[in-house]
């Protein structure tokens, strides 16, 4: 695992000062990056060099840097979260790159995710979809003991598989239609698989789909690109389940 040094890298990156201004690609070079460094540490180093040269540093979203908050969001060499599987950008390491390589970095590209600055996009549409029904309508207090309703082990596990979604938006960025179906289906499945969420399953599916359509996400054409790029391996089986829930909901209207 000994770390090596990547002598030189070319960074081709999207620069856009604000939503209302036009953007373009800029090229920078960076030297002496350890293969043990994370991709975002490479970005930190590049940014510090830019600041020292009097250039505005590249704005990018990031926070926990351990793959769980879902904040980081780069489209690297044509792939959301870059050339590794089951990782977010913050867990991507420089050992996945070669010295002398040109690395192309873009923001998520989707109508529902407008660019705010450089590589930062506005993903508040995801919050709005969840506000449309991605919850169980219980208030604090007055709930039964946690062991009152047994939940089959497999159901709990499947719910957890779907609940692992971090809301990063890679599925939308990977999809040629910018569909949010994997994201929506993960929430619908998570709650539909548990007795506590079952009660509102129909209205949840209906309301979340309606909100998704309203916000300008595209339709699903089953290419599976979302599943392939999902850092948390959320399965498209969830989309089938969502379609079923939605159909049942529509038929019972």
């Amino acid at each position, binding site marked *: *695992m*000994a*770390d090596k040094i990547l002598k030189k890298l070319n960074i081709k990156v999207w620069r856009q*000062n*604000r939503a209302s201004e036009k953007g373009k690609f800029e090229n920078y070079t960076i030297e002496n990056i*350890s293969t*043990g*460094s994370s991709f*975002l540490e490479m970005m*930190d180093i590049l940014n*510090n060099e830019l*600041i020292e040269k*009097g250039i505005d*540093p590249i*704005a990018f979203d*990031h*926070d*926990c*840097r*351990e*793959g*769980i*908050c*879902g*904040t980081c969001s780069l489209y690297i060499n044509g792939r959301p979260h870059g050339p590794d599987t*089951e990782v977010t950008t913050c*867990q991507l390491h420089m*050992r996945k790159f070669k010295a002398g390589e040109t690395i192309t970095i873009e923001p998520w590209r989707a109508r529902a995710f407008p660019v*705010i*600055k450089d590589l930062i996009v506005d*993903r*508040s549409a*995801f*919050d709005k979809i*969840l*506000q*449309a029904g*991605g*919850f*169980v309508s*219980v208030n*604090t*207090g007055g*709930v*039964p003991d*946690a*062991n009152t309703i*047994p*939940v089959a*082990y497999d159901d*709990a596990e499947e719910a*957890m598989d779907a*609940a*692992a979604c971090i*809301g990063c938006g890679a599925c939308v960025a990977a999809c040629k239609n910018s569909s949010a179906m994997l994201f929506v289906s993960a929430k619908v499945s*998570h*709650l539909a*698989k548990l007795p*506590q*969420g079952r009660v509102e399953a129909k209205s949840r599916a209906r309301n979340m789909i309606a909100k998704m359509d309203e916000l300008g996400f595209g339709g699903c054409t089953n290419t599976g690109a979302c599943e392939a790029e999902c850092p948390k391996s959320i399965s498209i089986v969830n989309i089938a389940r969502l379609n079923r829930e939605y159909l049942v909901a529509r038929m019972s209207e």
Partner: protein
Amino acid sequence: MSILNSKIPEGPLAEKWSKHKGAIKVVSPANKRKLEIIVVGTGLGGASAAASLAELGYKVKAFCYQDSPRRAHSIAAQGGINAAKNYQNDNDSVHRLFYDTIKGGDYRSREANVYRLAEVSPNIIDQCVAQGVPFGREYGGLLDNRSFGGVLVSRTFYARGQTGQQLLIGAYQALNRQIAKGAVEMYSRHEMLDVVKIDGKARGIIARDLVTGKIKRFGAHAVVVATGGYGNVFFLSTNAMGSNGSAAWQCYKHGAFMSNPCFVQIHPTCIPVHGDQQSKLTLMSESLRNDGRVWVPKKKEDAVKLQKGEIGPNDIKDEDRDFYLERRYPSYGNLVPRDVASRAAKERCDEGFGVNGEGKAVFLDFKYSIERLGKKVIEARYGNLFQMYEKITDVDPYKEPMMIYPAIHYTMGGTWVDYNLMTTVPGLYAIGEANFSDHGANRLGASALMQGLADGYFILPYTIGDYLADEIMVPKIDTNKPEFEAAEKAVTGRIEILFNIKGKKTVDYFHKKLGQIMWDNVGMARNAEGLKIAIAEIKKIREEFWSDVKVPGELNNLNPELEKAGRVADFIDIGELMARDALDRNESCGGHFREESATEEGEAKRNDELFTYVSCWEFKGERKEPELHKEPLKFENIKLSQRSYK
């Protein structure tokens, strides 16, 4: 000492909370609709409080610096949440959880607060299950538990290695429901930069819209700060990059006392630092110590070979391995509390037995449990953690032991609060990691999630009513008042000063420099001389920062460097106060280890006669010495003893 009234109710410990609830005032539904509350931060404490307060009928405004409330750093908590459910029939109880927490905190927390925490803990699990949190279950369909450090029962509920994520999503869903109803106004990508006081009471905040750079005013009848801890003072920590102490620090400057700032938790199982390009440290959950065994070589020559990379861990025979936690602490073994495990790792590495190139790592080995239980079981329990470890280090922990080392993780210290969670500023509350109250000098694993949700779901929604009941005649707060005007001006002025220094050094330069001083002198081992050096050095950093920092970009645009500059300016001040507090506390307790005060075996040695108090620091003006007040800790139900995990 008269300023500090902890408002702890009289009477027997087990009856205090119910008696108090019966005695405090309640606001009618019609009046709740007229009252506004600001909640800053949307982690477990903030999100659960904002949702619960809105459900009660208050008008809530919630703020977070992230792009969505779901991203608050509670999300990164891995292992679990404690609750005194006794589902395992292993003789757990509210009293046992209370006792473990007081003892784990090395007798530096309040009995009444900790008991209440233990008392409401079962309700949290009920609430989370009702929200659809997918906790781990047994095949019979009931909830499963695991064990955590510093306890002898299994009371930790978990959702794989993503418990914090699932609990936060539960609270976020409850919050979303209230946002959809219009009961909560959500302000994402907004950072609180000041608290506004009118006639001595907290009446609002000044926040910067991080997208447009606009400085905005928000009024409310009460303000709740749920902004987490200040561990990022150290630059390298397990906190998120954006986690900061600035909101709490502005409260401090407005008269909210800061308590026990030197109590910092150093987590024993983090992925070690590599090289000098690192930006943050990654935690490996404490739950791994359920099945992993910690060791270093017995022979120094083996350690030297490991350090040079000449041999691997699997080349060392079982009889040549020193399972030093099992050796030193036979009854708790690998599950000693975090402060004890961290110090033991440091001791071995300082003696030259460290196992990586820098000699600053120990092994956490799953070979034995894989042999005992099979790879499948281990994969089901910790699969995502193992995957994370492999992605970061390029080493497969199913085949080779993990390398781990202690790192800054959590701050037990924080804003002083009374039993109602109110600070020394009327109408200003602090909950979750941001307050000081429940964990003493060391927090037990899986208790942070418990405290955040206890405060937000079950304590603050009751206690805030006691204050607001007297505010029902106060009309909607007018943000055109001169106090708001002045606060906004001060915030704008400070930003402009930072921006116009136009020096030569980046914000990160100062942050790294501060972090190094803190780690070297206010880290795992502290002494008077080092602490004095730290205070002097931090003062120098402050002067240099305010004359030579370079903040690029524009004021009226998204500007991450400007955000960082403001936070680092406050970290410098917080760091100094931490060093000051550590210097005052000339005893060892929990995570605070003064080299002057150790037992013969090198364990932390308390001095109960002199230091059974909460330190409470009062701000006295910029660059002036703060004043120390003391809240004496009274133990009526527990006998203080030297902590032992042998």
